[in-house]
């Protein structure tokens, strides 16, 4: 192996201990005989490894979890109140015969719609919920913004396939 191939390994697999034993031995042999590559290895470690060795590992502040819990509680109670509306009205309008069933279903939707439009807060929450969902799916599918879209997906990643 020539020096440029060795330097490439010194910048990647060898440095990151991702090279197999055979390759490691080859690199070590070369380093034993080549002062230039030895110097290069030292420079890489100084410039690109040591500075990050003792990086601080802060945890998220307590308030983050509290906010998440609050948001979840709020979205759960929102779901419940919507469910109350649906089941409550169904009791009144669910009639046995199909024609009435259709009519009552239509009515239920009208009532729900009215309830939603009447309470603009709910409406906004629902709109916000859908906006978040749309954002999320866009983020999963859209690589455009982060420049990763031109690459082959790594094996074993099925999330997107499942969601679409």
């Amino acid at each position, binding site marked *: 192996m020539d020096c440029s191939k060795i330097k490439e390994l010194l*910048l990647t697999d060898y440095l990151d201990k991702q090279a197999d034993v055979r390759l490691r031995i080859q690199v070590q042999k070369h380093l034993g005989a080549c002062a230039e590559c030895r110097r290069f290895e030292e420079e890489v470690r100084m410039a690109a490894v040591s500075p990050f060795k003792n990086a601080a*590992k802060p945890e998220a502040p307590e308030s983050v979890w509290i906010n998440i819990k609050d948001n979840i509680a709020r979205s759960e109670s929102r779901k419940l109140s919507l469910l109350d509306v649906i089941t409550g009205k169904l009791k009144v309008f669910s009639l046995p015969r199909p024609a009435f069933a259709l009519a009552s279903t239509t009515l239920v939707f009208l009532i729900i719609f009215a309830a939603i439009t009447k309470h603009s807060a709910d409406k906004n929450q629902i709109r916000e919920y859908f906006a978040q969902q749309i954002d999320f799916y866009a983020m999963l599918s859209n690589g455009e913004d982060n420049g990763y879209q031109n690459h*082959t997906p790594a094996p074993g990643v*099925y*999330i997107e396939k*499942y969601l679409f």
Partner: protein
Amino acid sequence: MEDIPRDIIEKAAKGEMEAFEAIYKAASGFVYRTALRIVNNSSDAQEVTQDIFMKIYGNLKHFEFRSNLKTWVYRITVNTAINAYRRNLREKSRRQDFDSVIETEGHSPELIQAAERSDAEKQITSLLNMLTPEHKAVIILREIEGLSYEDIAQSLKININTVRSRLKRAREALLELSKKAVKNGL
């Protein structure tokens, strides 16, 4: 990031808050730190972290999502943080068109925070800031969070050779920076 046991994920999917809290405890350190390194300020990193955990909560019902939770957390963290970082850059440049620079940069809490950081931390921040967001991401995932090439590939949705070439270029950039620093007597 710690592995999250399967039964914890299943319980959280059924709505058990204690199980979801266990997921938070296992993943929030990685999420918050990575976001903090990329966006470079604590309040945005907190917002990104909240955002990500709401998405995790909302998607636990999807089976395939649950079975790839760790990879998904890695990926959504990097993507959400890079997007927040770019949004900040755009907003900053727009703000500077209108406001005076002194007004906006004068007494920000982040600056005070930065002054209190250790020299080692300052060096890390300034080195990372010299890299492109993509190079920054591979260095954070590899050097600070210790991910394998395979995990980095899955997180960034790139193949292993692209991981190699990004790490190589990122480290070459860091080498250049250190040579320049030596030349300038720093």
